[in-house]
């Protein structure tokens, strides 16, 4: 193993591992798949490090790999539309992503708060979820979202506007139901 190369990848895993995993998970909504994809991102980055020419930020390059892998996964799963087969009583996120011993109260509070926004984001088409993940979750600027997705900035803006409108509407509806 080439030490310098591995050190670079290790530093990138530390800096971007969590956020890449979160983004992929938000898009795929599949814990196992998102873990595999996040790992594959860094494996590919290690093998193709010579091709990284520093013309973009490492994070942009890594996110681009992640987005491509996530898209391939969705394509294979034919999951570009709504996924409505999730159980109603299911906790927002799988056990592996929750603390080792959360209190029952903590689980209920987190589940209640998260369920609304999660269900709203889940209801978006995957192309909008990607934009939401990068813009809201990772707080990437529009220009970087466009670079990662290889889309014109105008397209990103219009997708973001559409996602925002859908989220607002859904959140208001969901919260309206919750209050009554």
């Amino acid at each position, binding site marked *: *193993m080439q030490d310098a190369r591995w050190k670079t990848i290790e530093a990138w895993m530390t800096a971007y*591992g*969590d956020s890449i995993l979160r983004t992929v*998970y938000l898009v795929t909504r599949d814990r196992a798949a998102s873990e595999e994809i996040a790992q594959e991102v860094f494996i590919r980055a290690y*093998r193709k490090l010579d091709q990284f020419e520093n013309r973009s930020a490492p994070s942009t390059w890594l996110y681009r790999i992640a987005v491509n892998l996530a898209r391939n996964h969705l394509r294979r799963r034919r999951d570009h539309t709504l996924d409505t087969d999730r159980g109603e009583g299911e906790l927002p*996120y799988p056990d592996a992503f929750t603390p080792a011993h959360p209190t029952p109260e903590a689980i209920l509070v987190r589940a209640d*708060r998260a369920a609304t*926004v999660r269900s709203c984001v889940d209801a978006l088409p995957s192309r909008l979820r990607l934009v939401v993940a990068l813009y809201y979750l990772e707080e990437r600027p529009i220009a970087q979202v466009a670079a990662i997705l290889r889309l014109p900035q105008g397209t990103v803006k219009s997708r973001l506007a559409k996602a925002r409108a859908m989220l607002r509407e859904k*959140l208001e509806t969901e919260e309206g139901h919750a209050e009554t």
Partner: protein
Amino acid sequence: MQRPDDDRDALIRDRLQQELKEVAFTPRMRAEVRRAVSGERPGTVEPAVEPAPAVLRGAVALAAVALFAITGAFGLAFFTMNHEPQRQFVVSDLPGAAIIYNEERVQ
């Protein structure tokens, strides 16, 4: 485009981040990456590939022996160079021949 800064956007952002803050790239996943790129089988320790130290040790030993030999050779040469010859043989010391020689000189 400027980031909208109304309450709803902040709410979406905060909730998403709150919801996913426990999602983490774990040491196990990091180890999986390492295993994949090093071609190591799961559950095994990465073999130590260190041929260089053995070669280096041999080279150091060889250099030490060579240095010792060179130092010894120089030392020997130094101590023998300034010594007087143990004995100066003269013709008179030689039996027989010396007698003849002396007799010749006397004559």
